[in-house]
């Protein structure tokens, strides 16, 4: 048998080069896909940009029946997206960080892996099923048992005024919170695990209690990475679609009351895209473009914050 590398050098060198280029092409599809989606969404929203210009972002009306082509503005959806995401973060981030601390510093060794797997299972539950559960289990409970109590205690605030529908911004935010728990928890756990044990030992040696070790040695060291985890959670919260669509009430409102129904960028696209055409379709494309742009920026920020810590860490160890 002839040795391949020596016997047929030119043939196999060509094959090598072709294979190399093929792999490079595979790797570059990642960037190309991003450019492609940006390009297609910009193209799709051209008509809307031409018709409404910058007014699109400050207009509160979303009405297919206004005038000849209808009038479309993004503000209610931007508002709904921001409000539900903030609610989700307020609920999910403290819970996730607490869980991550438990998983890395407190839980008995034998419990850590099973617990982590259980939290991964939470991430495997599809969005539409959270929505189903939201409609038939969560919404009735919140409407009859939780929201009236909340209104009684905090009703003097404008956020908890008005009629209680069950569906609405607060319900959507709660569901999104549940859905981002796994990712925020697992990234927080990675971040806390990258804190060197030397930090902890030093604090213990100074006589710190268990919690003081966590606060002084671990949390302050990992603060930036934990913020990165929260920002990553924000990125997921902004784009959460199905569960939100099913429990938010789907009305282009801008209301201070969190009990009121609303709509997010993703939920209005999910609801109205299939039947849309003309200016309306183009406006929905522009909403998609806004959503894409914001999530890309948020994700870039999150990656930078998380990796800044981990690379600094590897440098220290090396």
């Amino acid at each position, binding site marked *: 048998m002839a*040795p*391949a*590398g020596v016997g047929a050098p030119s043939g*196999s060198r060509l*094959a*090598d080069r072709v*294979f*190399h280029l093929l*792999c490079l*092409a*595979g*790797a570059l*599809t*990642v*960037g190309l*896909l*991003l450019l492609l989606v940006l390009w297609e*969404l910009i*193209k*799709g929203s051209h008509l809307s940009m031409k018709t409404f210009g910058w007014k699109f972002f400050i207009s509160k009306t979303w009405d297919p029946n206004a005038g000849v082509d209808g009038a479309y503005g993004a503000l209610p959806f931007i508002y709904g997206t921001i409000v539900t995401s903030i609610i989700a973060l307020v609920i999910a981030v403290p819970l996730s*960080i*607490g*869980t991550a*601390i438990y998983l890395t510093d*407190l839980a008995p060794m034998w419990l850590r892996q099973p617990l982590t*797997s*259980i*939290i991964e*299972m*939470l991430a*495997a*539950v*599809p969005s*539409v*099923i959270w929505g*189903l*559960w939201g*409609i*038939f*289990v969560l919404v009735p409970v919140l409407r009859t048992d939780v929201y009236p109590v909340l209104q009684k205690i905090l009703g003097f605030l404008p956020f908890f005024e008005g009629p209680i529908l069950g569906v609405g911004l607060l319900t959507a935010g709660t569901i999104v919170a549940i859905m981002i728990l796994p990712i925020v928890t697992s990234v927080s756990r990675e971040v806390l695990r990258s804190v060197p044990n030397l930090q902890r030992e030093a604090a213990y040696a100074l006589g710190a*209690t*268990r*919690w*003081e070790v966590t606060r002084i040695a671990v949390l302050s060291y990992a603060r930036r990475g934990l913020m990165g985890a929260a920002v990553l959670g924000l990125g997921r919260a902004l*784009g*959460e*679609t*199905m569960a939100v669509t*099913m429990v938010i009430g789907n009305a282009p409102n801008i209301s201070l009351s969190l009990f009121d129904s609303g709509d997010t960028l*993703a939920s209005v696209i*999910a609801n109205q895209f*299939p039947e849309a055409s003309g200016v309306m379709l183009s406006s929905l494309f522009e909403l*998609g473009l806004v*959503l*894409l742009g914001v*999530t*890309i920026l948020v*994700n870039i920020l*999150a*990656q930078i914050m998380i990796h800044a810590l981990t690379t600094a860490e590897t440098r220290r160890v090396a």
Partner: protein
Amino acid sequence: MIVASANHRFRKFKSLAMNSLCIACALLVILPLVVILFYLVKMGASSLNLAFFTNLPQAPNQPGSGMANAIAGTLELLLLASFVGVPAGILGGIYLSEYGGERMNRWIRFWADVLNGVPSIVWGMLSYALVVIRMKAFSAWAGGLALGFIMLPLVLRTTEEVLVLVPRSYREAALALGLPQWKTIMRIVLPTALRGIVTGILLAMGRIAGETAPLLFTALGNDYWNHNLSGPIAALPLQIFKYAISAYDDWHRQAWAGALVLVALTFILSIGVRLFSRGRFQKST
């Protein structure tokens, strides 16, 4: 002997309180999973029967209604998505592990992670613009393409992760025997890591099996059998969505049954596969 001062006692107490709070957080995080599994079994199991797996959807309150076409549709869409996401993902993963320089790799990983964070509904819009508008019809092709876009960065990252676990000496031995690099990769590196790569693909399938948003205006859904990939096709998550927002109790029951089947499918793909592959990963490090 140390005398426990009031301050010391307070610090001890505070530590205990905060640690208990962390335990409470962990319990609260697990609670939704317990609750949703409870409801899925309670509401779903009673509506599951053989007809559910063999029959087509019927009008509300008709007996013998099923989701056979939706289950088949979901499997077809997973297959189509794999044709899009798997080859490019594996080739990209090979590039990262075998060819790319440090700088280039960092950029590609970075963009793959950013891509991973793009909302799934946006991929539906891209597929709509590329396929549905051109073909002037909703189709299985469009649905599969949208899911394939989601799959690509996932497969790329997991492929890279398992390829770097293949010992360097394997590659050196093959190259020393005169094998060209592409053959070294195809005959030595890939087969060694095959189990890990397949695991990664199945995990990615588990991720996309429950995706609904990108299918809403690409695959669209269908109440009948459809064997034409250029036409609308049913999918389990779409059927669940349609039934969940309907006004009929009978359809709600079926939505729960469908949800139970869908969760079982995603759990088998994501958890079962992980357990199955665990031993191998540790051995190869």
